[in-house]
C-alpha cells in the first residue's frame, strides 16, 4: 500500500496522485454505499413490516442489490419517441454530480479527506442544488404529464426547504467561524453541536429529508398519485442512476449532518473513520425508519409546514442562538 502510494506520488506528483486516488475512492464509495443502502433499506422496511426482506442471494440477501444491478445494466435503454433526447439522456448523469462533488470535502477522519477547501460547506450546498436541476431536466424532457407534475413539485419543494436548511447551517457557522469542514469538526472537540442546538439539528434533518425527496416528503415521486413522478419514463440503468443518486444524496445529507451536529469523526476509542460511518448510518437508519412509518404529506401541507413553521423556527433559533453566543463570548 505504502509502496504503491510512493510510486504514484513519485510519478505523478502529490497533487495529481491525490486527485486520482480521491476520484477512485469516491467512485468506489458511492457505488458500495448505494449497494449497501439499497440492501439496508429493504431489510429495514422488511423488518418494520413484519417480514424478512431479501433472504435468497447471499447471507441475509446481502448480494441482492448486486444481482439487481446486473439485471438493470443488462436491460435495454428505452428512449420513448416523444422525449427531448439530449436532456433525457443528460438528466441521469447530472443527478450524480452533487453526490460526487459533495464527497470531496467531507472529512471521513482526521486525515482522510480529499480536499479541505476553505469553502467546503458552501461547495456541498451549491452542488446539492444540481439535484433539483436534474429532476427538472428529467421531468421536463420525458414529455409526460406525470413527470412534469413531479418535476414542478420537486422544484417548489427543494427551493422552499433550502431556506430553513441553510438558516440552521448559519447557526453552526457562528460557532465554528469557518466554512472549512475540518474547522467545523474541530470546533466540536469538547461538545457536539447537537447539544447546544438540538432544534437546529432537528430542522436540518427534516429539511435534508425533504431535499432528498424521501417519505413523508416524497411528493415529487408520489407513487400512488404520479405513478413514478419525474422518473416515470425512465427504465433500465437510467432509472437505476436516479435510484442510486437518491441513496448517495441521503448519504451526503447524513454525512453533512454528522459533520455539522454530531462531531464528525470525533469519538472515543475507535478510529475516526469508524465513528464517522457509525454516526452517518445511524442517521440514515432514522431517515429510513421515518419513511416506513409515516404516510405522505399533501403538497400544500408540505409547503405550509416549511413556510409557516420551519422557516420562522429556524430564524428565531438563529437570532436567539446568536444572542446567546454574543453574551458568552
Amino acid at each position: 500500500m505504502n509502496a504503491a502510494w510512493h510510486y504514484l506520488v513519485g510519478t505523478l506528483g502529490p497533487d495529481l496522485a491525490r486527485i486520482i486516488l480521491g476520484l477512485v475512492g469516491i467512485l468506489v464509495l458511492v457505488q458500495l454505499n448505494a449497494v449497501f443502502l439499497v440492501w439496508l433499506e429493504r431489510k429495514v422496511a422488511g423488518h418494520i413490516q413484519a417480514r424478512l426482506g431479501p433472504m435468497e442471494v447471499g447471507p441475509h440477501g446481502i448480494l441482492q442489490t448486486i444481482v439487481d444491478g446486473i439485471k438493470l445494466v443488462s436491460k435495454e435503454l428505452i428512449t420513448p419517441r416523444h422525449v427531448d433526447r439530449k436532456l433525457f439522456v443528460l438528466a441521469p448523469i447530472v443527478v450524480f454530480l452533487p453526490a460526487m462533488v459533495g464527497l470531496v470535502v467531507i472529512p471521513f477522519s482526521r486525515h482522510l479527506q480529499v480536499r479541505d477547501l476553505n469553502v467546503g460547506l458552501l461547495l456541498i450546498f451549491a452542488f446539492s442544488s444540481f439535484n433539483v436541476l436534474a429532476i427538472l431536466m428529467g421531468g421536463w424532457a420525458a414529455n409526460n404529464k406525470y413527470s412534469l407534475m413531479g418535476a414542478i413539485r420537486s422544484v417548489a419543494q427543494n427551493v422552499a426547504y433550502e431556506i430553513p436548511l441553510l438558516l440552521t447551517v448559519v447557526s453552526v457557522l457562528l460557532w465554528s467561524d469557518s466554512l472549512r469542514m475540518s474547522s467545523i469538526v474541530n470546533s466540536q472537540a469538547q461538545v457536539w453541536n447537537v447539544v447546544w442546538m438540538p432544534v437546529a439539528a432537528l430542522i436540518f434533518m427534516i429539511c435534508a429529508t425533504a431535499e432528498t425527496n424521501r417519505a413523508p416528503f416524497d411528493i415529487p415521486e408520489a407513487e400512488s398519485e404520479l405513478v413514478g413522478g419525474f422518473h416515470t419514463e425512465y427504465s433500465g440503468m437510467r432509472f437505476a442512476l436516479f435510484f442510486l443518486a437518491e441513496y448517495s444524496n441521503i448519504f451526503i445529507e447524513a454525512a453533512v449532518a454528522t459533520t455539522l451536529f454530531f462531531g464528525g469523526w470525533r469519538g472515543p476509542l475507535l478510529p475516526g473513520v469508524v465513528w464517522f460511518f457509525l454516526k452517518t448510518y445511524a442517521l440514515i437508519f432514522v431517515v429510513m425508519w421515518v419513511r416506513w412509518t409515516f404516510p405522505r404529506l399533501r403538497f400544500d401541507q408540505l409547503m405550509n409546514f416549511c413556510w409557516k413553521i420551519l422557516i420562522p423556527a429556524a430564524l428565531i433559533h438563529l437570532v436567539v442562538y446568536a444572542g446567546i453566543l454574543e453574551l458568552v463570548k
Partner: protein
Amino acid sequence: MSTRTPETVTEHTFYLNLGPQHPSTHGVLRLFVKLDGEYVMEVDPIIGYGHRGHEKMAESHFYEQFLPNTPRMDYLSGMLFNHAYVAAVEKMTGIKPPPRAEYIRVVCAELNRVASHLMWLGAYLMDLGGVTPFFYAFDDRENILDILDRVSGSRLTYNYCRFGGVARDVDDTFIGATRDFIKRLRGRWKDYNNLVTKNVIFIHRTRDVGVIDKDIALRFGCTGPVLRAAGVPYDVRRVEPYSVYSELDFEIPTGVNGDALDRYMIRLREMEQSLRIIEQALDRLPGGPIRTPTPNKVRPPKGDYYFAAESARGALGYYIVSDGSEYPYRLKVRVPSYGNLQTLTEVLPGTLVADTICILGSIDIVVPEIDR
C-alpha cells in the same frame, strides 16, 4: 381546500387521464380530470373497462350455474355476493335453509366483510403513501382467507352457498380458528390506532377532505360506509333484516361530517361489530343438517323479485325476473360502488390531485363490481 370552481378553459388548463393503468385506481377505472395546476376543476369517471357481461350470462345459465359468477363481480366480498344471490333465489322459490346453514352463512359473510375492510385499510394507507400498514392488514386478512379456504375451497372467489344450505359443514377446527382470529384482531386494534388513527399526518390528510354530506349521499344513492359516515344509520342488515341478522345484536356505527376520516373510522368500527356478530353466531350455532334437499333445477314461479343485502360496500340488490323456466329471464344486480363512485363528480372539483387519490380510496370502490 380551495374555493376554485369549474370555469372556462384557460391556458393553464391541463387534462389528465388518471387510469385505466394507474397504481391508485383500484382496477381499471379511468378518471378524466381537468386540472388547473394541481387543482381539479372537473372529473369524469369512465367505467366499463372490466365489463364481462355477468348479467347477460345469467340469462343463458340455470339458476345454479350462475352461482360461480356471483363472487367474481366483487372479488373482495365474494361471500356476500354469493350469499345474497342464494338468498334471493330462496326467496323466489320458497326454499327454507336449515338454521345451521343460516348461521354458517352469516359467520362466513361477516368474516368476508372483515377481510374486505382490512384489504381496504391497507390499500387506502398505501394510497396516502404509508406502505407499512398494508402489510399488517394483509397479515391479518391472510388468517381469514385460510379460514374460509378451509370450508369453501377457495381464497377469494368463494362459491360456498347452495340453494337450501351451504356446500360443506364447518368443523371444530374452523370454529377454533375463527375464535383465535377474533382474539388476534382485537389485539391488533391498538397497533392500528397507534400506527394510523393517531398519526398526525394521516389525520391532516383525511379530516375535512372529500366531504360527502347527507344531501350528496342521498342524491347519488350512496349506501354502506359512505352513507353511514354522513350520519344516516342505513344498513340493510338492520333495515330489512335477512338471514338471521334480526336475532343478532350489533350496532350501526355512524359518522358526523362524512369526510374521509369518518369513513375510515366507520370501517374500523364496523369490523368490530362484525366480530361481535361472528362471536354471537358461533355461540348460537345450532346442530342439524346443513342443507334442505332441493330439486336439481330450481324453477321459481313467474314474477319479478328483488332481494337486498348489505355488502362490504353498501346495499347490494338482486333484481330477478322469472318466466317460470329454469333460466332467469333477466337478472340485474344493484351494486353499491356505482352510486358511491358517482359522488366524485360533485366532491372532487376544487381539491388537489393528492386529494383525488385520497377521496377515491376512501370511497372504497371495486371496479369489476361496477362493470360486471
